[in-house]
C-alpha cells in the first residue's frame, strides 16, 4: 500500500493499528464506482452527475443535510432505484439491470422495514434462510447477531413489542447477518442513546475490520462519522462537496459549506492584502486595520475577498494581550459564556458586531471564572490555526 499524506487516518481499532489509504494509491481498484451518476425524480434532480470511488474494506460515511440525496445514492447501489444517467459498478461489474435480490449488498433501512409478522429471531434469520444456509449454522449466526446487538432476551418478540432503539438494533442485526460484501447503513444508530451508540460504533468498526466488509454509512451525527469512517463525503444538493478522511474534512475543509457543516466554526470575511509563498496576509472585515496572517498556499489574488475559517478550540481568550507578536490577535467583549462541563464556550463580540466562539477546556475546578460578562478580552490564534476558503 502506498504511503501518502493521508496516513494521518491511522486509527486504533480493537488494538490493531490501522494504516489504510487505498484512495491515494493509483494502482488500487475501487470496489464501488459511481460514474457520472444522475438520478431524477420527474423534474427534481436528487443526485447530480456524481462520481465516487469506494474501496474494499473501507468504512465510508455520507454526511449532508436532509434531502441532499444520501438515501437515493444508497438505494441505487442496493438496486431499488436505477440511475437516470451514469453507471454504477461493484467489483468491476456493471450493476444496471441487476435486481436487488441478486446483488451482493445488504441495506439497513432508515425506516427499519422489519417484518411485522415475524419474531426478532425470524427477522434476523430471513436472509440466511434465503441462502438455504443449514439450520445449525443459521441458529449460530442469529445467536451471534442477537448477542452483538444485545437483544438475546428479545428473540421471541415481535417488532411491535420493541422500543424504537431495539427495533433499530434488530434492523442492524438483520442487515449484518448475511455478512455481505457491501453493507449500506442508513442512519443505523440514530435512535440509540449516546452510550449504546458509542458502544455500537466500536462494535461496527470491529466487525468491519474482522470480516473485511465494506461499509457505506449515512449519518447525521458528525462525531459518529469522524469516529467510524475512513473517509467522509460531504454532500449538498445531490453533489459531493468534499471527499476526504475525517481529519482533512475537519482541518482542511475545501469550502465554507464543509467548514460550516462539519463541527463548529467561526467564519471571518476578509480581504487578501499580501501574498508570500506559504504565507497569506489578510484584513478581516470584523477587525479593520488589524493584520492577520495564515500560513498556507492560497489561490486568491491580492485584494480578493476570502473567508478565514477558525475552529473555536483554536482561539484563545485572554484578559491580557498575547506576548508573541507573530500571533494574530483581535479584541472584543465577552457577550456570553456557555458552560458545557468539560469546556466553556466564550462568545466574544468584535467591534463591528460579529460574534466569534472560543472554546476553552476547564482544566481546573473553578467555580468563579476569571473572565466574565462584559470583560474586554483579546482573542488570539496562531498563523496556522485558520483556513482560508475561497469557495
Amino acid at each position, binding site marked *: 500500500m502506498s504511503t501518502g499524506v493521508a496516513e494521518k487516518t491511522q486509527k486504533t481499532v480493537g488494538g490493531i493499528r490501522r494504516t489504510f489509504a487505498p484512495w491515494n494509491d493509483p494502482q488500487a481498484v475501487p470496489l464501488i464506482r459511481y460514474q457520472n451518476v444522475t438520478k431524477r425524480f420527474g423534474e427534481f434532480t436528487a443526485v447530480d452527475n456524481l462520481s465516487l470511488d469506494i474501496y474494499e474494506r473501507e468504512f465510508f460515511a455520507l454526511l449532508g443535510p436532509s434531502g441532499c440525496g444520501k438515501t437515493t445514492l444508497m438505494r441505487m447501489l*442496493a*438496486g*431499488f432505484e436505477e440511475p437516470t444517467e451514469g453507471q454504477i459498478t461493484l467489483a468491476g461489474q456493471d450493476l444496471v439491470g441487476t*435486481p*436487488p*435480490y441478486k446483488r451482493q*449488498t*445488504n*441495506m439497513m*433501512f432508515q*425506516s427499519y*422495514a*422489519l*417484518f*411485522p*409478522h415475524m419474531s426478532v429471531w425470524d427477522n434476523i434469520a*430471513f*436472509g440466511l434462510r*434465503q*441462502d438455504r444456509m443449514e439450520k445449525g449454522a443459521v441458529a449460530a449466526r442469529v445467536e451471534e447477531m442477537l448477542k452483538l446487538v444485545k437483544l438475546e432476551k428479545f428473540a421471541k418478540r*415481535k417488532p*411491535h413489542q420493541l422500543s424504537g432503539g431495539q427495533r433499530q438494533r434488530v434492523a442492524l442485526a*438483520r*442487515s449484518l447477518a*448475511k455478512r455481505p460484501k457491501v453493507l449500506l447503513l442508513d442512519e443505523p444508530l440514530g435512535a440509540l442513546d449516546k452510550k449504546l451508540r458509542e458502544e455500537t460504533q466500536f462494535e461496527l468498526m470491529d466487525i468491519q475490520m474482522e470480516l473485511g466488509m465494506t461499509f457505506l454509512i449515512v449519518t447525521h451525527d458528525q462525531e459518529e462519522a469522524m469516529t467510524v469512517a475512513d473517509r467522509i463525503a460531504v454532500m449538498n444538493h445531490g453533489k459531493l462537496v468534499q471527499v476526504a478522511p475525517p481529519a482533512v474534512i475537519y482541518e482542511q475543509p475545501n469550502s465554507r459549506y464543509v467548514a460550516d457543516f462539519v463541527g463548529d466554526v467561526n467564519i471571518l470575511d476578509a480581504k487578501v492584502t499580501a501574498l508570500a509563498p506559504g504565507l497569506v496576509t489578510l484584513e478581516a472585515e470584523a477587525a479593520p486595520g488589524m493584520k492577520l496572517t495564515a500560513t498556507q498556499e492560497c489561490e486568491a489574488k491580492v485584494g480578493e475577498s476570502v473567508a478565514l475559517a477558525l475552529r473555536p478550540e483554536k482561539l484563545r481568550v485572554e484578559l491580557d494581550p498575547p506576548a508573541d507578536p507573530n500571533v494574530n490577535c483581535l479584541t472584543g467583549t465577552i457577550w456570553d459564556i456557555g458552560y458545557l462541563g468539560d469546556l466553556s464556550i466564550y462568545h466574544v463580540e468584535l467591534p463591528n458586531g460579529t460574534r466569534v466562539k472560543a472554546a476553552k477546556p476547564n482544566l481546573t475546578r473553578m467555580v468563579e471564572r476569571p473572565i466574565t460578562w462584559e470583560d474586554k478580552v483579546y482573542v488570539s490564534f496562531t498563523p496556522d490555526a485558520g483556513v482560508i476558503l475561497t469557495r
Partner: protein
Amino acid sequence: MAVKSGARSSGRWLVVTIPYLWLLALFLVPFLIVFKISLSQDAIAQPPYLPTFDLSEGWAAFKDAFGELSFENYGYVLSWDNEFIEAYGSSLWIAGISTILLLLVGYPIAYGMARAPKSIRPTLLMLVILPFWTSFLIRVYAWIGILSPEGLLNQLLIALGIISPDAPLQILATDTAVYIGIVYSYLPFMILPLYSALEKMDETLLEAAADLGCPPFAAFWKITWPLSLPGVFAGCLLCFIPAVGEFVIPDLLGGSDTLMIGKVLWTEFSVNRSWTVSSAVAVLLLMVLVIPIVFYQNLQAREVEGR
C-alpha cells in the same frame, strides 16, 4: 373524586349498554320468538301453530302452554329421511367453493388496486362499489339474460364460431350458474377487506425482502400473503356466511336439483306453510353459522391484541 369517577363510569356504562340493547331488541328477541315457534306444532289456526302464550287466560294456562313445547321439529329436520341435512351440506359446499373462487378472483383485483398509483385508487374503489347502485335482484336477473341458452354468452360464442348453434352451452339452471351468480354478487365484499389489508402494507418490506435475497414471487408468499391474512379471513367470512343462507341466486339461476338451505326454508315456509319446521331450519342454520362467526371474533380479538 368519587362523584367524578361515578359520572365517568356511568358514561362508560351507557356507551357499552346501547349496542347491547340494540342487539337485544333486534336480534335476541326476534331469535327467541323464532325459537319458540320452532318448538311449537303446526296447526290450522291464526297464527298457524300451537301453543300460543296468552297471559289473559291465567297463569295455569300459560304453564300448560310451556308443557306443550317440544323439540319434535328438530328431530324431523335432522332425520336422514328428509332432505334437510343434505341441503345444509350442499349449502356449505356451494358457499365454500364460492368463497374459494371469490378469493381467487378478488385477491389479484385487490392487489392490483393496492399497488395502483395513489391518485387513481379512489376511482378504482368507486368502480368496485358501483354495482351496488343497481338493485341486487335486477343484477341477478341480468345474468339470466347472459347465461340462458339463447343468451348473450351463447350468441357471442356462436357468432365467433366456437360452438355450434344446435348445441348452446347449458349453464343456466345448473350449479355453475349459482357459482357465477354468487361470485359476481359477493365480489365487493371480498375485495374491500383484502384491499384495506393490502393497502396498509409498507412496500419497503418487499424491498427489505429483496435486499436479503428473496425474489419477488417468494417475497409474496413470505411477506405479502401472511400480512394480508386478516383481510383474507374477513373477506372469506363476509362472503361465506351470507352465501350459506343465499336464496335469490339459487332460486333464479340454479336448477331444480340445486339444493340450498335458503331455498328449502322458503319452500317449507310458503309452499308447505309450516312455520314451525321452517323456524327449526332457521335456528339450525344460525347454529351452523355461529361457529364461523365466533371463530372470526376470536381472530379479531387476537389481531387487536397483536397490534
